[in-house]
């Protein structure tokens, strides 16, 4: 049996050893500042260019549109605040969904406090956003629509292409932003096809390093930088480039893109095996969110009514298995996940939810061992919670 079974890959992933190898060389040898005039700077600038090209080719966009940032949160902030801050003649209404990652949701809430009118689109009970609902929310005043690609808690894949279409049908000049942090490298997403103006991605969700991400900015789209300074990254993101991170990101993205189809099939088969094993061994497990074509291959959200997600996480942890909860606990009352709540799940369901998320490093054996452990732990906990 392996020492640990890591099934929390939506939180973060183990860095690919190949990526570490590439980064080590940068730390030790190519440590120049890309802004320097001398050869050591030029050498490093080339490496950044390669990383930019590798990421751009996956998205099928021009490399100049890729701006490196410190990660998904910064990319989302740059996209949303950057758009909101551009002076406009027409309105400042902005639209998002109620199931976004907090780096989007709390940025919208902050802008709302500053006076921007905000519409939050509610999902259906599978965690899917209806493009029609987005279309109906758009007014003459609307300047920005921001909808995520894959929901990080339940794995639902939002109909981005369709949403992009309805947004641009309403008006070409509405900016369409997509937080693609969870799906990038695992599922195809193309700004061209989806009418996407801005797209956020992050390295550490696909076996790259933490602390680096990127924002795709379509040519001609106006946004204001959030971080000002020396004018790096075409002025959109000042600050000396995180060269090892960027190069590591490029390498991780390349590895992910090269194997995307095969990886996707493997992840899917892990997920299918898990669902199948659960239905025979733990029949009272409830799957939250969309399934099949409408869901990402690596995320599965489950509930076990009567058992709190947090307790389940810790119990599995004692057996070397790492998953996460859908909802975080505060003192007496479980503060339930905003995503599950928005999907209309009952409190008993959402406070007992856990999220299992796979990576290509997981095996079929991991799934079997997880189900076995889950069965034991549930039996034990059910006895303790009896009558609770």
């Amino acid at each position, binding site marked *: 049996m392996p020492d640990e079974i890591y099934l929390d890959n939506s939180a973060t992933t183990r860095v690919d050893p190949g990526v570490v190898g590439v980064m080590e060389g940068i730390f030790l040898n190519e440590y120049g500042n890309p802004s320097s005039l001398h050869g050591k700077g030029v050498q490093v600038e080339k490496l950044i260019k390669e990383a930019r090209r590798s990421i751009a080719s996956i998205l099928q966009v021009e490399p100049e549109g890729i701006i490196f940032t410190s990660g998904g949160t910064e990319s989302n902030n740059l996209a949303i605040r950057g758009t909101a801050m551009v002076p406009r003649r027409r309105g400042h209404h902005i639209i998002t969904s109620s199931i976004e990652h907090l780096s989007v949701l709390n940025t919208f809430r902050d802008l709302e406090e500053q006076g921007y009118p905000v519409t939050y689109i509610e999902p259906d009970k599978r965690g899917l956003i209806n493009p029609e609902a987005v279309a109906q929310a758009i007014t003459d005043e609307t300047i920005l629509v921001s909808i995520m690609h894959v929901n990080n808690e339940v794995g639902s894949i939002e109909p981005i292409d369709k949403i992009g279409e309805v947004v641009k049908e309403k008006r070409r000049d509405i900016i369409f932003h997509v937080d693609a942090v969870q799906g990038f490298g695992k599922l195809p997403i193309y700004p061209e096809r989806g009418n996407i103006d801005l797209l956020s991605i992050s390295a550490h969700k696909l076996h790259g390093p933490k602390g680096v991400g990127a924002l795709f900015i379509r040519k001609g789209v106006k946004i204001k930088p959030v971080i000002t300074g020396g004018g790096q990254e075409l002025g959109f993101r000042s600050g000396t480039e995180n060269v090892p991170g960027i190069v590591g990101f490029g390498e991780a993205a390349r590895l992910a893109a090269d194997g995307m189809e095969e990886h996707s099939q493997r992840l899917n088969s892990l997920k299918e095996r898990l669902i199948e094993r659960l239905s025979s061994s733990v029949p009272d497990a409830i799957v939250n969110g969309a399934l099949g074509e409408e869901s990402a291959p690596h995320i599965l959200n489950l509930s076990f009514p009567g058992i709190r997600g947090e307790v389940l996480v810790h119990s599995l942890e*004692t057996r070397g298995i790492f998953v996460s909860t859908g909802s975080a606990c*505060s*003192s*007496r009352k479980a503060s339930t996940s905003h995503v599950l709540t928005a999907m209309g799940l009952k409190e008993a369901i959402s406070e007992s939810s856990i999220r299992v998320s796979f990576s290509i490093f997981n095996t079929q054996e991991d799934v079997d061992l997880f189900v076995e452990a889950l069965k034991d732990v549930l039996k034990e906990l059910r*006895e303790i919670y009896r009558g*609770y």
Partner: protein
Amino acid sequence: MYDVILLRYGELALKGENRPFFERALKENICKALPNIDPKAVKRRHGRFFVDVAEEEDIEKMLSALSKVFGLVSISPAVRLPLDLDAIKEGAFALGRDVIPIGGTFKVQTKRANKGFPFSSPEINKEVGGYILPRLAEAKVDVHEPDVIIDVEVREDYAYVTGRVIPGPGGLPLGTSGHGLLLLSGGLDSPVAGWMCMKRGLSLTALHFHSFPFTSQRSKEKVIDIAQVLTGYAGELRLIVAFFTNIQKEIQTKVPEKLRVILMRRMMMRIAQKIAQREGALVLVTGESLGQVASQTLESINVTNQVVDLPVFRPLIGMDKSEIIDRARAIGTYDISIRPYEDCCTLFVPRHPSTRPALQEVEDAEAGMDIQALVEEAIEKSKLIIVNGRNSCG
């Protein structure tokens, strides 16, 4: 400028024949509070302690550490001057420039213990005040309610000038009242209860009940962080983490819902009493406040108390939650206590706990449990964590 810190202690002075005992303990605690201090730099004279300041840039750190030494009533950084009026005037002016706010008021107040000094107290007041006033733009003298009192003390060997009084925590030197065992959770109350007992001279061992996987690793980290704050007052702290998981399981499976909390409290007290014996503690300290929750009604406290012979101090018994919160803020534990991790008291709390449990029904409910074995297991599987705070004396 500052070359000495003056430490005043109050209540100790009244302790009659035991006074040397308290003063020795206080001196030791002062040494412990100051990392790398040479014990010779701490002197007692004229019913005060004087601490020599070797490096002036350390002074704020020293003052902050000393403001947490129980037994001290107030602390003042001071300038030490030769017995010469001109030197006193110059020194008082230098200090005044530092402590009198722009546009603020001051007065000079002299105490002349050295009657051989050729000027009287009123003369010194006048001379020193008259020297400072024209040299500090916008400063004014106010003899009734000044912003700052410039204190001049003329002693046998030196004169001391101070202008800033930092309150100490008061109370009695830590350890002079004996040793106790604090039941420490991650909540707001128990750290405050521990602090209040420490203030009255009680040194403490802390005991925490951990119920992983029902509570998280982070809830234990939270308790360690709280203990770390308490070491600012206590020096080093022994934190014992008792294994409570199986007791929790046993109670959940065998005990009626409404009695679970009270049974849990009784188990905690039993474990605490045994550990207290091992730690040489003569008292248990808890954070209970009368009527705050179901387990803190008079009936519940009575039933809980039945299982212990040691006295139980409950220093928060008469405090409101808001008073406890204010105190937790002042001590520095508040921000840690409000972190959102469960401790074992909160996770299994039933919807309707009994507020008036009868001893008989509680004892009946316990009958099916092997109490002795559970208590022994909890102690046997407990872990000791030494939480380090200050450095020790030279």
